[in-house]
Structure formats: structure tokens, C-alpha cells
């Protein structure tokens, strides 16, 4: 047994989070629900500390290769932990306003982050599966967190049942792969696949991809997404659409390129098909939506298609594009949800798109921020969303996937319709009623504005900083 202390040193960020979550659980259990604010603040600090520990920690692999700390894992983890921290801040204010403030919310997010960290640095099939279960189980509970709300309970139950089904697919695939390759570790599987290309292995791989595609809500495994996004509490949806997606994308990249680099030709076809279906479902499904969160669900389905396209390219440039795209997308999403949380009329949150009409009179600054974020998700240059798509389409075209990239471009033009509709409603339509919006909660308002400011103009500075980081993170993956 190689010494335990060095292994623990490598996994220090997860260890910090796990031990910290236990301590916070004790704090909450002894002080009671009054401690919700305190536990939230401490959890936020804990997640930031974990991100710092991950970034400054050593590289290497531990636990017989089950845990990998490399630049890809570290980059993924810092994005995951920081966006989870933002979700805790957003959730704290929201829970207080809806009077369901409980200390379990931040604790569950911290525990989910442990699982997402495991996913980002998993080097074998067991740690992959345990990481996925760890974070999904916490997310199921969070989806149903507002337990007196029928829609939230429905969202939780739907997510749980369909999530269990996808875990079944994933496990079936994993057991086939283990059966044929004789090893759980991605490295060994890759080494085995070089000498023995096997149909059974590919069969398992397809099941594995199906299970993972479910977790990132890529079509045709997206059925749960609109309902869960509509029913779950808004700050929880903000979490759903950011950290777990990044974790699962990093995991997909690692499993496919680390474990099955040899069969790139086969799995890239599957990913391309999934991307294309996601483009279509996301772009056309969103057109008819009336609920903002349902709209964002379809938007996330389409965006996951773009991110998967980066992985499908199979090059390190493609992986870099995926990381870039996901980072910029996460910031846009956090901004979108923060603004959504900051808008309410006579104590009721704004849910329907039509309710945004005439927002410019009431809240000019928020309307500007929402406009910037919409243009950014739409992919308008020079906003941040454009740069994400620019990298992905560039990488796809370089890998010879230009027809798919063209299809993605068309889909984003179709999707532009629903973002432009939001902008039109805010700036040119008369408000539906004379009720002014309530005073916006400070934290949500500022996070929304900050994310919008990042989308434009700070993104230009951000790119010069993100580019080398993502390049370092994706080095060593893919074929050239």
C-alpha cells in the first residue's frame, strides 16, 4: 500500500469538504434551524477553501489510480466548487424569503460537491459511479427541498426515478466494460483496448454514454429537464444547470478520452448524434415555452449539445473548447438565475416570460443585465457566449466535423428567437399591470450584475486569463 498520507494529501480538497460538511452538520443539529445563515456562510467559505486547496495541491494519482489530480481535474473542481458556493449564497436569501430556511441546504450542496469533485478526478469505474451517486442523491433531495410545494415534490420524484433508471444503464455499461476488459481503471481499459478491440467493450461504452448523457441532460435523455427545472426551487435549479453539468462533462471527457481513446471513431459518432438531437430539441422545444425556467431548461439542453461537440472532436483543442464553453456558460447561467431570483411582484417570484414585459421602466439596470446575458447565451459577438461557441465550432471544424458545426450554427439562430423575445418584451412592450416589482434582494441583484458585467465587457480580459488555464487543463488528452 503506497503511503496513505500522500494519497490523502492529493485528495485534500474532497477531504476538507467531507470533514467540513460533517462539522457543519453538527453545528446545524445542535443550534437548530436558526443556524441556517451561519452554516451557509461557513459552507461558502469551505467551498472556496476547497477550491484553493485543489488549485494549490500536488498532482498525481492515488488509491491505485482511482483518484487522479491533474490539471483537468483541478480546473473542473475550481469551477464546480465556486459555482456551488454561488448557489449557496443565492439559496440562503431565497430560503429565508420563502420561510423554509434550514441548515441542510448548504450541507447537502457541500456533500454534492464532494461527489462532483470525485467525478472530476475519477480514474476508474467505481469512483465514477460512486461520485455520480453521491452528487445525484444530494440533488434529488435538493430538487424536492420545498416539500410543501407540490411541483417541487413532483420534480424531486421525477428526477429520482429517471435518475435511478440512468444509473442502471450506467452500471450495466460499466459491468460489461469490466467483464470484457478485466479492469476497472480507465488506463488499463485503454491499454487492453489497444490489443483487443472488442465489440462487447463498445457495447458497454454505449450504455455508459447513455447513462452519462442523462446526467448532463443531453437529448434524447432530456425528458426530466423541463419538469425538474420548472418545479425545483430556483436557486437549486441554478445549481443544477452549472456545477453538476461541469462535473459530468469533465467525467465524460476523461472516461472517453482516457479510457477509450482508441475507439474515438466509434464514440464520436454517438456523441455527434446526441449533439445533433440536442440542438434540435433545445432550439425548437424552447420556442413554445411560457415559463422562464422551462425555457432555460431547453436552452441548457441545446448548450450541452455544443459542449459535447467539443468532446466529440476528440482533440485536445476540442477538450479546451469544451472547458472554455462550460466556464462561460456557467457564469451566464448563474447570472440568469440570480436575476430571476431578484425579480418578484408583490412577494411572488416572476415565473412567466410575459411578466418580464416593461421591465425597463421598473428596473433599468436589471433589464440591461438580462439583455446582456440573453445576448450572451444567444451567442452574439462580442459577448461571452459567442466566445464559447467560437472555440467549440473552431475545434469541431478543425477535426473535420464542420457539417455538425454548421447544424449547431443553424440551431443557435433558431434559439436566438426566444432570447430576442425576452429582450423585446423587456424594452418595447408595455407592462401587463401597474404593480411594481418588489425591492430586489441585495445578493441576487449583485451576483446578477456581476455575471452580466463578466459577459461583457470583462470577458475580453477573462479570455486572456482562461485561455492558458484551459489549454494546460486539456493538454495530454486527445490525439493532437
Amino acid at each position, binding site marked *: 500500500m503506497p503511503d496513505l498520507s500522500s494519497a490523502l494529501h492529493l485528495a485534500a480538497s474532497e477531504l476538507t469538504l467531507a470533514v467540513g460538511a460533517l462539522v457543519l*452538520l453538527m453545528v446545524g443539529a445542535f443550534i437548530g434551524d436558526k443556524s441556517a445563515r451561519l452554516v451557509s456562510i461557513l459552507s461558502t467559505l469551505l467551498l472556496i477553501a476547497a477550491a484553493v486547496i485543489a488549485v494549490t495541491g500536488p498532482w498525481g494519482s*492515488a488509491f491505485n489510480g482511482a*483518484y487522479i489530480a491533474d490539471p483537468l481535474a483541478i480546473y473542473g473542481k475550481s469551477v464546480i466548487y465556486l459555482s456551488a458556493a454561488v448557489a449557496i449564497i443565492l439559496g440562503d436569501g431565497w430560503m429565508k424569503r420563502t420561510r423554509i430556511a434550514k441548515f441542510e441546504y448548504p*450541507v447537502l450542496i457541500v456533500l454534492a460537491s464532494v461527489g462532483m469533485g470525485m467525478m472530476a478526478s475519477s480514474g476508474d469505474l467505481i469512483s465514477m459511479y*460512486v*461520485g455520480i*451517486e*453521491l452528487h445525484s442523491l444530494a440533488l434529488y433531495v435538493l430538487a424536492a*427541498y420545498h416539500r410543501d410545494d407540490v411541483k417541487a415534490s413532483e420534480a424531486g420524484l421525477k428526477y429520482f426515478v429517471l435518475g435511478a433508471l440512468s444509473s442502471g444503464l450506467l452500471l450495466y455499461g460499466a459491468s460489461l466494460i469490466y467483464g470484457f476488459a478485466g479492469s476497472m481503471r480507465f488506463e488499463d481499459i485503454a491499454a487492453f483496448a489497444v490489443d483487443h478491440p472488442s*465489440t462487447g467493450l463498445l457495447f458497454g461504452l454505449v450504455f455508459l454514454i447513455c447513462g452519462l448523457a442523462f446526467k448532463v441532460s443531453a437529448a434524447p435523455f432530456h425528458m426530466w429537464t423541463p419538469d425538474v427545472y420548472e418545479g425545483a426551487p430556483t436557486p437549486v435549479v441554478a445549481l443544477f444547470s452549472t456545477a453538476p453539468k461541469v462535473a459530468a462533462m469533465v467525467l465524460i471527457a476523461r472516461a472517453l478520452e482516457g479510457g477509450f481513446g482508441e475507439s474515438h471513431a466509434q464514440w464520436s459518432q454517438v456523441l455527434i448524434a446526441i449533439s445533433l438531437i440536442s440542438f434540435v430539441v433545445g432550439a425548437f422545444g424552447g420556442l413554445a415555452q411560457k415559463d422562464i425556467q422551462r425555457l432555460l431548461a431547453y436552452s441548457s439542453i441545446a448548450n450541452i449539445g455544443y459542449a459535447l461537440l467539443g468532446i466529440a472532436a476528440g482533440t485536445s483543442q476540442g477538450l479546451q473548447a469544451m472547458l472554455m464553453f462550460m466556464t462561460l456558460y456557467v457564469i451566464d447561467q448563474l447570472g440568469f438565475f440570480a436575476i430571476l431570483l431578484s425579480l418578484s411582484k408583490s412577494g411572488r417570484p416572476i415565473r412567466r416570460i410575459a411578466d418580464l414585459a416593461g421591465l425597463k421602466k421598473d428596473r433599468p439596470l436589471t433589464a440591461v443585465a438580462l439583455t446582456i446575458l440573453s445576448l450572451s447565451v444567444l451567442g452574439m459577438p462580442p459577448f461571452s457566449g459567442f466566445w464559447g461557441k467560437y472555440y467549440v465550432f473552431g475545434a469541431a471544424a478543425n477535426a473535420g466535423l464542420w457539417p455538425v458545426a454548421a447544424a449547431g450554427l443553424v440551431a443557435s439562430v433558431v434559439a436566438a428567437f426566444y432570447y430576442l423575445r425576452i429582450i423585446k418584451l423587456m424594452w418595447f412592450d408595455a407592462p401587463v399591470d401597474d404593480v411594481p416589482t418588489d425591492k430586489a434582494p441585495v445578493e441576487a441583484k449583485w451576483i446578477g450584475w456581476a455575471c452580466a458585467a463578466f459577459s461583457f465587457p470583462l470577458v475580453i480580459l477573462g479570455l486572456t486569463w482562461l485561455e492558458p488555464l484551459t489549454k494546460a487543463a486539456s493538454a495530454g488528452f486527445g490525439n493532437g
Partner: protein
Amino acid sequence: MLQSIAFFLLAAVATVSGLLVVTARNPVHSVLWLILAFFSSAGLFVLLGAEFLAMLLVVVYVGAVAVLFLFVVMMLDVDFVKLREGYARYLPFGAIISGVLLAEMIMVSVAVVQGGATNGRTPVEPSLDVTNVQAIGRVLYTDYIYFFQAAGIVLLIAMIGAITLTLRHKPHIKRQNITDQVNRDRNKSVEVKSAQSGQGVSAEELL
């Protein structure tokens, strides 16, 4: 020979009872079929030389999980006939999908068998010098400590989730306060009243 017969018998029983779990009309019967499926799988484990896992399967799944299922199914007030209303309507579509899936699996299995099922890999022979329990004990807390601890956190999340989603603090419920109980003494709880001889005491007087 005997082993092959045992294998095919157990495997067939496991598969058929698995099918019956899904198709049985009465959910209590489903759980009973599930228990049979667990028993047959335990038998398969014994054939593989993994007696400890077989015992665990019986103890944990049959003893705890399945019995828990049985309780839940019996206690739930769900109209199962109503739940099955869509069954016939979706059956053709489901049958097509599962038929395609089955055909694909058979095709792959055939292709795999033709190419040499395991590519010369043979399962590791169970070593005779250590028992099952020893073999698991050697790796569970050493090689697999990472997974073991992570699985522990999964269970912790399940517990936190169950409590968060179901626990309600109702205000008018009397709860046990152990500190109060321990600190009680005779002077606080017993009062000596003098009663007139021959008259007895009434409840009003005592209060």
C-alpha cells in the same frame, strides 16, 4: 455436470422471477418474486465460490431490504389497479423497444462469442488458503478505502435527505427531556397531603 445443472436451474429461476417481479399484478407478489430472485442469485454466488457474498445477499437483501419493501407496499395506500391503467396502452411500444434491445444484445453476444468471449481471459480462481471474509477484509479497508468512505457519505446523504424531506416539528407533541427526567427529585414531584380520617380525598383538593 452437477454444477452446470445447478447453474442453469438457478439462472433460469432468477430470470423468470425477475420477469415476474415486473409483471405480477399484486405488488406483494412482486416483492415475494424479488425475494426468490435474490435467493437464486445467492445460489449463483455460492457456485462461484463466494459464500460470504451469498450470505450477505440473503441477510441484507432478503432479510432487510425485501422485508422493508413488503412493509412499505402493504402500508402504502395506493390504488395499484389505477396505476396500471396505461399498461396495455404502452405495452406495444415498450415491446418494440425491448425487442430491438434484445435483438441487439443477442447480436453482440454472438459477435463476441465468435471473436472469443473473453479474449483468453479466465476468471481468477478462488484461492483456497484464505476464506472469503479474509479476502474481502484484506482489501476493503486498504485498496478500496476510498470507495468505502465515499459509499459511507452516500448513505449519510440518504439519511440527511430522508430527515429533511419528512421530519416535521409539530408544536403540541410532548417530547422526552432526559435532563429534566434525571434532575427530578422527590420534593418536586411528590407532595404529602394530610387527609382527614374517614373522609377520603377528592381530585380537586389535590390540585
